[in-house]
């Protein structure tokens, strides 16, 4: 009887849609379940298939790698939700979202292969209602069903941005008792979902100063370094970025001018701060173009199912024009509906 015992597997049953057709489209809607259109013309509400690979909960090891920075000592935390708001009880058929802490960032929703998670202004919701269209099946058929969705077009959006919505989300984040790695985790996960293989520094690693590195999954030329500051230390980010670039260039043989420097913050700094002028000074003297993001901006791109493509999009802003609205408008092909009155999401509010 000598052995290592195994943990009890969740008694969840694999599922598939009982529609004999191929899915061609998943359309997402704010505040409402998404809809799947099959090539037979049938259209149904998307429902959770209790994936064997828990896409909405964990990243795979492969997803937490970067081909350009394979030596980077990174945080291997594979949680999709940066505050652990999504969980799967061993006795439950479906995952569950803790709505009291979920703030609708959209990470779990964007990873659902069948679009079964939708967002409301308060929380993400896993749709488990449409069970008439679901059959239990073996794992092989379940995986084959999930594969069929790979080629389905994804349209629509998860949420419409507004001042009220960001006020709710940002205030909920501020009330969250998240640990100190939260800013790095949410940034990493949002960037991964936006098409960038991203690694972040391990919590407590005092020997490495840079917060993260990334490379574009689809364009081998695009790679960069990230500074993440959610507090007032964002004012130090430009000089921290220079430190990172110097270290990567001098010690690790990366060409600093091949690296895209990103600063990710909670709010954009006040326009009167020196941040914006220093960004311009660095551009003037070293021709390094530091790109500024907020997590709100990253969420906004995710809700609209966009990818960040640095070969086409430029998020460089400085004291002459500290707003990233025009870049966002170009990407989304529409006006951005934010006044930035309460939080500086896409432009400084003061």
């Amino acid at each position, binding site marked *: *009887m*000598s*052995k*290592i*015992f*195994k*943990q*009890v*597997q*969740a008694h969840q049953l694999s599922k598939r849609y009982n529609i004999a057709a191929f899915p061609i489209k998943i359309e997402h809607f704010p505040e409402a379940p998404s809809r799947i259109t099959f090539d037979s013309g049938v259209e149904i509400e998307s429902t959770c298939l209790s994936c064997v690979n828990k896409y909405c909960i964990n990243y795979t090891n492969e997803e937490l790698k970067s081909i350009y920075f*394979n*030596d*980077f*000592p*990174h*945080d*291997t*935390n594979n*949680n999709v939700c940066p505050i652990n708001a999504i969980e799967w009880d*061993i006795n439950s058929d479906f995952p569950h979202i803790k709505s009291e802490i979920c703030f609708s960032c959209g990470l779990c929703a964007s990873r659902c292969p069948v679009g079964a998670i939708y967002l409301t202004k308060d929380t993400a919701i896993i749709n488990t209602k449409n069970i008439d269209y679901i059959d239990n099946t073996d794992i092989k058929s379940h995986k084959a069903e999930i594969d069929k969705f790979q080629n389905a077009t994804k349209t629509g959006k998860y949420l419409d941005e507004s001042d009220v919505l960001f006020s709710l989300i940002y205030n909920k984040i501020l009330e969250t*008792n998240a*640990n100190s*790695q939260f800013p790095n985790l949410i940034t990493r996960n949002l960037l991964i979902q936006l098409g960038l293989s991203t690694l972040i520094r*391990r*919590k*407590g*690693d*005092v*020997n*490495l*100063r840079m917060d993260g590195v990334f490379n574009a999954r689809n364009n081998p030329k695009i790679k960069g370094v990230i500074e993440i500051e959610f507090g007032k230390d964002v004012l*130090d980010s*430009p*000089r*921290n970025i*220079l*430190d990172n*670039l*110097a*270290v990567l*260039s*001098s*010690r*690790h043989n990366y060409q*600093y001018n091949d690296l895209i420097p990103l600063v990710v913050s909670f709010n954009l700094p006040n326009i009167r701060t*020196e941040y914006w*002028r*220093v960004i*311009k*000074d*660095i551009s*003037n*003297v*070293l021709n390094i173009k530091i790109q500024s993001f907020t997590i709100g901006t990253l969420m906004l791109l995710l809700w609209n199912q966009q990818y960040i493509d640095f070969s086409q999009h430029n998020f460089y802003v400085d004291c002459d024009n500290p707003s990233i609205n025009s870049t966002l408008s170009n990407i989304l092909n529409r006006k951005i509906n934010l006044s930035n009155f309460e939080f500086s999401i896409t432009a400084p509010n003061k």
Partner: protein
Amino acid sequence: MIRFPNPGSDIDSFIRIFQILHSELNDKSYFTLDDMSEKLTNKNLVSSQGYMGEEALKRSVRKDRSRDPVYNQSKMYAELYRILGWVQSDENKRLNFVFTYLGDHMANAQLDPLSLFKECILGINYPNAIIDVKSDKYLRPFAAILKSMYDLDGYICRDEMIIGPLSIDDLISEEYTSSITKIKNCRPLHKKLMDELTHLSEKLNIQINTLWNYTRFPISVLGYCGWITKERNKSIYTDKKLVFLKLANGGEKIARFINDSIDIRYNKVPKEVDFGCLVRVSFFQMLARGGFEIDSIQNSIEKDLYKLQNHYDESSEYLFSPYQTYKIKTVNEALANYIPKNKYVNTTITNLLEKYGDYSSNGKNTNYFITLNPHESILKIDNSRSEFVKQVLNLHKSYAISNEIINRMYHKYKEANKDVFYNLIAELLTILGYDCSATRYGINYERWDAMISDPSYSIPIEIKSPTEEEYLSVKAIRQALENKIILLSRNLYPTDYKTVSLAIGYNSPNYRSDVSQLIEDIYNAFGINIGVIGFRTLLNIVVKTITEKKSINLEDLRNTRGIINVKDF
């Protein structure tokens, strides 16, 4: 008081790192801290001095192991893994480790590591045969904390935890009761609590700050296990708003389980009890609560349970983690029928010290010397206007040796604040003949703290007073770089690209810091020169200029890079 080391990383990483180490080292008959370090760096789980991968290890390995960062991280992990019962030390060699059968299961708890982790947290108990602790008090700390919270209406704060459940012998019921009474008596006056804390700190001869540090691990674990939430409360102590730990539903459930369970402690098992049965029942109950499927051995567990019923209530579960209480040899004997026989295969252990040798962090860094030359120096400042010159000349009347004056002046300013220190540095440089002034407070666009202005080669200066940082750190270097870029971009003072940007602090950088290397990195990447001067070096130059009529070549400063020292002729 029970002291926990701080893992220095979040608990998710801490568990994952264990699982990785287990998969890498499990085939060895034992492993050392060096083996752990090698695997941690190979798997990119640690860094050293800003380097990654093998280079990190190479840079970390030093003959003086107390200063070796990767080795120290491994040591800290090993210590906590021992406390949790996942590894144990070799009987004869404390720094040779083996994975326990419990550790094997923790490594295999990929689906739900938290459940078994919680069991191991509850399993921590003192004294035991594994960890040496000075105190002979019996304590199962996490059980005592949760039970105390339950008896304190669901709330406890950090300082209450220190004076209460972390400082008692929980097998003596009077101690437990008086700890609860003590906390209740403190409430609602925070001052009373502080008095108790101060009293304990004096009794143990440990600073309060250190006592607070010991609670970091328990507090983060309680939150990670979902047993508590944090709440800012102003009603429990009416004179102070404090962050309290509030018992969550999960914690309340555990507190009830603790009350109902049979708590087995080291050397407290009656002789008549079949120790093997006790180990097997407790270990497998622990695994079952940790989410493991043990149905296949249920019959034999039932038999063992039956043998224990003469001494213990058969309806209760056992709270006893054998590998956290007794030596591996003793526990393995009881579990011999279950532990896989081919677990250990001998392999050679590499000694990393031999592989990499000693590493000097300053090996290839630039240090620049400024030369003090004998010279009929004429002070460039009117003596009557410089307080500093007056002070030095006064001291010179009593002390002929310049070093004595330098020492006195150095100590005089050891607590100088920004205002005093920035102006002092500007004054010292002015004495040397530079046109230097400190930046007035509130001028945001002048980011530097002082400026040596020159018709062609102005030098921005970043200053750190001793109250800001005792030793210059990389922060100052980053700021010196930014100062240079701003100056070049905004043209507020004339300069050129090559002229140095200075950072001046009370002490030159700590030997472990990355300052010298960063200065080289900045030069290699951007071609910008950053120079660093410690206050003592600057005093050396200035005092000798005043008392020994020596002087420096003013041009020398602008061509420096790295840590600037002084050669005295």
